[in-house]
């Protein structure tokens, strides 16, 4: 990252634009948490937008790995090829003309393969292979002039292939190969253009390369060269949700080949991958065909892992920007508020011998001091709005395991601070609180409106059903958020509750609403031992990004409540009645019984 360009240490930047040097400085090694990513084997990496998937992939690229490990290319454990899947390159509207036509699969495979091949060559070039005595260039020329030329011809290549002059360096050779694939990609685009305004079949007469007969042998051969690592080639397919359905099924067919010793395919998705079927209609399964990782699960099950990661990321960014402050100093808490909370904690400690509820005095201090303080503000102002969501720790908790939910608000805070002061060596608690609250409002209102209509748009013909589902989700969030707020104000033994666990089997309609909530980041799904102790049951955790909206204490999300399916249905259909009952009859009596509503509220 060129620091002169970096106007804001927390600004969002596409990882592929960050130099290897800067990646080395900025990246926090997370592969202890995601150990399948940098090991041989096909892997799906699922995570919401902004959870750090692309950064992980960028870190695996050879230029970064060489720097980090301080070794040459051939000493690395793998050779990673970054393949960003954006809407611009592969998912062209014209290709819809091929749907339901025989050529759909073969043409799309050739299109996808050509794209991957260009990226492969680009990676080889970026790796800056050294070849002092021309040995690599000579062996590559020998391969190009024989086997590779034959492979091209077998795929129906009729255009004359350029000659590779004896004087060509190894990098000249990679460039020549890249140009061949780039030209082929351009030729395909010309064909795609012809599809645009023609409803009948359009003849394609060019080559058709397949994975097994062309790309895999090419990669296997490349792997044999002395300059390459002995481990597999990794194809890092980033944001594969952007592939069309047929392209996803083609990629799945590649995964099903189980070639991971030579080529391991690492596929990142934003939880919206279109299909796990291959082109032959078979599903690919875990663990037989691939392993998978869900970033959200990892970071909502390990208490300190995420906090430490954010701390390191912020520290590195501040350092790079010349700000010598710790994350805690840069995002200070509202000191007066913290002093009052500490005073309450001391009172709780003093009373623990006679009135204590936890095993240790410190348990009561941690559990009740902050909720008691928040409740005391509610008692006086009725609004609770004077509680400040500020301080590095609270901000980390609120970001709910997704790094971008820390960095984006931080960038806005920094911008706001800079608009008021020439220098920003810390962010005032007032600005932290203001931005975090506005982000929570935005998440529940404008963003909700935006994606709920998006969803309705996706399911043409079922808009009313989808809108109904999104309305139920909003009701559910309001009901549970309101309930958790009531718990915070209660004298319960655990007042910091963000989760519900189901006591019985959920019905399909309830599951669908939770699924939608999980997809858009309002809930995280996990599992927990059931009430009877005979097995496990679903646990849904409300995102702590909404803590400021419902005036909740974000510093723990360990507490949960059991709830019946009927109670959840009532929460989805009649939130006002549901919350009224919670206030009148108490949380447990409502959550654990519930009553199916006869009519929905307006």
């Amino acid at each position, binding site marked *: 990252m060129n620091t002169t360009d*970096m106007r804001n240490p927390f600004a*969002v930047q596409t990882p592929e634009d960050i130099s290897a040097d800067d990646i080395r400085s900025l990246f926090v090694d997370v592969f202890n948490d995601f150990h399948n990513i940098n090991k041989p084997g096909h892997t799906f990496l699922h995570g919401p937008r902004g959870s750090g998937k692309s950064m992980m992939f960028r870190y695996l690229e050879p230029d970064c790995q060489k720097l980090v490990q301080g070794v040459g290319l051939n000493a690395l454990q793998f050779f990673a090829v970054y393949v960003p899947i954006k809407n611009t390159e592969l998912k062209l509207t014209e290709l819809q003309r091929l749907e339901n036509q025989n050529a759909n699969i073969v043409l799309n495979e050739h299109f996808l393969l050509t794209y991957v091949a260009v990226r492969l060559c*680009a990676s080889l070039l970026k790796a800056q292979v050294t070849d002092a005595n021309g040995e690599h260039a000579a062996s590559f020329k020998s391969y190009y002039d024989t086997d590779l030329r034959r492979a091209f011809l077998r795929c129906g290549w009729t255009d004359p292939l350029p000659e590779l002059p004896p004087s060509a360096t190894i990098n000249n050779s990679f460039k020549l190969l890249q140009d061949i694939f780039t030209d082929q990609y351009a030729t395909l685009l010309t064909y795609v253009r012809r599809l645009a305004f023609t409803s009948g079949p359009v003849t394609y007469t060019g080559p058709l390369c397949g994975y097994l007969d062309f790309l895999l042998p090419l990669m296997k051969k490349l792997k044999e060269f002395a300059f390459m690592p002995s481990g597999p080639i990794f194809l890092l397919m980033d944001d594969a949700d952007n592939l069309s359905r047929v392209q996803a099924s083609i990629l799945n067919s590649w995964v099903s080949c189980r070639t991971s010793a030579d080529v391991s395919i690492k596929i990142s998705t934003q939880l919206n991958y279109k299909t796990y079927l291959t082109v032959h209609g078979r599903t690919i399964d875990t663990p037989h065909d691939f392993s998978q990782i869900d970033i959200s699960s990892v970071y909502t099950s390990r208490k300190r892992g995420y906090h430490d990661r954010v701390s390191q990321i912020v520290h590195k960014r501040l350092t790079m920007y010349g700000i010598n402050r710790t994350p805690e100093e840069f995002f200070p808490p509202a000191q007066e508020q913290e002093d009052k909370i500490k005073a309450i904690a001391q009172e709780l400690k003093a009373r623990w011998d006679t009135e204590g509820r936890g095993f240790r005095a410190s348990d009561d201090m941690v559990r009740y001091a902050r909720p008691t303080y928040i409740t005391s503000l509610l008692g006086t102002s009725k609004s609770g709005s004077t509680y400040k969501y500020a301080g590095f720790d609270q901000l980390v908790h609120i970001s709910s395991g997704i790094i971008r939910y820390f960095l984006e608000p931080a960038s806005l805070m920094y911008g706001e601070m800079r608009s008021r002061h020439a220098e920003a060596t810390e962010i005032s608690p007032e600005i932290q609180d203001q931005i975090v609250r506005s982000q929570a409002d935005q998440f529940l209102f404008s963003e909700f409106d935006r994606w709920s209509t998006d969803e*309705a*748009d996706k399911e043409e013909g079922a808009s009313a059903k989808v809108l109904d589902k999104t309305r139920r989700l909003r009701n559910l969030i309001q009901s549970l958020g309101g309930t958790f707020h009531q718990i915070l104000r209660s004298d319960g033994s655990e007042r910091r509750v963000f989760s519900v666990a189901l006591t019985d089997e959920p019905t399909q309609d309830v599951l669908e609403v939770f699924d939608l909530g999980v997809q858009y980041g309002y809930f995280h799904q996990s599992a927990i031992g059931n009430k009877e102790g005979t097995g496990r049951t679903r646990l849904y955790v409300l995102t702590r990004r909404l803590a400021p909206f419902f005036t909740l204490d974000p510093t723990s999300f360990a507490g949960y409540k059991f709830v019946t399916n009927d109670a959840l249905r009532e929460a989805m259909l009649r939130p006002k009645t549901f919350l009224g009952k919670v206030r009148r009859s108490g949380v447990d009596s409502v959550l654990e019984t519930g009553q199916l509503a006869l009519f929905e509220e307006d």
Partner: protein
Amino acid sequence: MPKPTKILLTDLRGRVHPADVFVCSASFESRSQSVPEQLEGVAFTRVLICANENFPHVIKQGAKQLQHRFGSIARLVSLNTNDPLRTADRLQEAIDDALRSNLNRFLVDITTFTHESLLILLRIFQLRGVDSIEFLYTTAKAYSIGDPDVQKWLTKGIGEVRSVLGYPGRAVPSHKLHLIIMVGFEADRAERLLQEYEPSKVSLGLGAPDSSISPDHYKANKLFHQRLIQKYANVLEFTFSCFDPEAARDALRAQALRLPKHNVLIAALNTKISTLGAALLALEDDSIQLCYATAHQYNEARYSTPGDHCYYFATALPVLLPTQPTVAP
């Protein structure tokens, strides 16, 4: 090529040059009737009334009203905002049919076409080598009527984000992406595109102050730009004309050239005239891709009130490059 002329709608009838085919688009916006109302009875041979079949009430009211206005020379052309292939097929049929009947001079009221349909229509004109086209665009007196400037909205929700049919670009897979957004009313749509494409560089185009709806609106947009610049690294800014397609094209070209060796993607979210500017550039330089974000909900009740003026202009579409495929009518 003369600049677009702003003329009173009531003077339009006496100012338009003869044309064989008048093309317009029915809409829930009353602006869709402004030009047709003035041109009723003009000696066209054919009138093509485009209407989105997935908005049945528009066909029922707006299109029927236009058909009634032009009587037997009117032909309904059914488009579909959810199905660009169908839109392209219907537009092609209508244009080809006119050309077969030797109707070569077109007058197009672009006011209420969707950006995507308009771009597809222009590509068809270029493919067919139509060289006599004039355009009309009715101004709006107000948008999002009655709402304060910062709360104005025209559409809500973004559905599919897709490349515009006929403008796939010529991306080089090893190059990085430069997304150029011609920001309009809903600045948050621009941010959604940014999230969708995750470009290496983004250029945010702001309608030039002298062509903005109001100074307050210009200020609101400017504020939004500042917010995005805080949040995203590598954001560039530029201005473009909302009411001169060739000036808009030139501004876009200059912006695209600022970053060589990038794949250029343009999202036109401002006036239809500036969208025409984006088309002019992409029609002459087929390496550029245009994209479109479908809207879920339109502010149908309070979208706009028609102004008293319209812009009237001719713009020569770039001739087809030898590398571009042609499809005979």
